[in-house]
């Protein structure tokens, strides 16, 4: 049995993973494990009509209905100007563009969980030792998920 001190040493030598890394839009991104509920294959998607083209539709995961949200499109909004053609592909186009076969999605652990498709899952990664998100080789999407969760709050 390890002493508390040994466990501490071991913890320093092998830091516990704190991020799940994945690829969206050809770029490595990550989410804190505290915001990740799981990774799942994307089954049938019910293409619910929506004004926001980043809402790809609905999926059923373990009996729960979850919205499938194109985070890549939401991320592009911050860098690209408004482009009406951007929404033309819809759910089929967005899912067809994914590299993973079968397509995978990550399910968030938040008050109102969402699922978002990813092109690949890179695995668990340790949190950057110093500098936090700024020093991370991955773009950390925690703020986006937190904002999405806040936006879904009816009281917001």
């Amino acid at each position, binding site marked *: 049995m390890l002493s508390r001190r040994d466990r501490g040493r071991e913890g320093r030598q092998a830091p516990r993973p704190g991020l799940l890394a994945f690829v969206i839009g050809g770029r490595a991104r990550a989410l804190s494990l505290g915001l990740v509920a799981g990774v799942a294959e994307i089954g049938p998607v*019910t293409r*619910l009509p*929506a004004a*926001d083209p980043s809402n790809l539709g609905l999926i*059923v995961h373990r009996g729960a*209905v979850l919205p499938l949200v194109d985070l890549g499109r939401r991320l592009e909004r911050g860098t690209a100007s408004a482009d009406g053609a951007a929404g033309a592909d819809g759910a089929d186009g967005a899912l067809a563009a994914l590299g993973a076969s079968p397509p995978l999605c990550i399910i968030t652990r938040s008050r109102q969980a969402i699922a978002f498709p990813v092109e690949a899952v890179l695995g668990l990664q340790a949190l950057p030792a110093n500098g936090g998100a700024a020093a991370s080789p991955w773009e950390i999407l925690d703020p986006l998920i937190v904002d999405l969760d806040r936006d*879904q*709050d009816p009281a917001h």
Partner: protein
Amino acid sequence: MVMTTTVPHQAAERFALLAVDGVEYAVDATWVRRSLPAPSPLPAAVLHGGTAYQLVDLRQLFGLPASSDAPPRAGGGPGPERLILLIDRPPAAPGPVAPEPAAAGGVHRLALVIDDLLGLETLAARAAVPLPGVYRGPERHWFHGVLPRPDGRITVLLRPEGLAPAAAPSTAPEEVPTAAAPSPGGAAC
């Protein structure tokens, strides 16, 4: 598929199932009057039995293409001939707490243009869940919520009073020939 219904008040959880662009929708059967083949071109309104029904093409309302390239889903794809579903607010149905502007204006007789009519079914509507919060656009007016089915599919519950366009039709109603439709008196799905 052509259907009529004559039991508007005895089917609190009976729904007419319909398909648009491969998605299955359900509308409370108490709203449904009958279905008819959709004429081409579509009129602005349908006159049936002396009553005018304002036409609402669900594909157009939902921003979908006029025809779908998606593979049809269990009878859910657009067939060669679309249908019109006549709906009307049942007399005893409680009105919405906060009526939609269109509904408040009295537009509650609608002729919904749909891809296909899938039948009548009793649904456990209490198991329906509201739209996820990421849906914040006009779709919140169109749908009551969604119902996960035991087989894994999702049925979207239409909110008839939210489908009415705000503007009244500008052209005269067109009488739709009913010869192709069965006579009223029973459901024939």
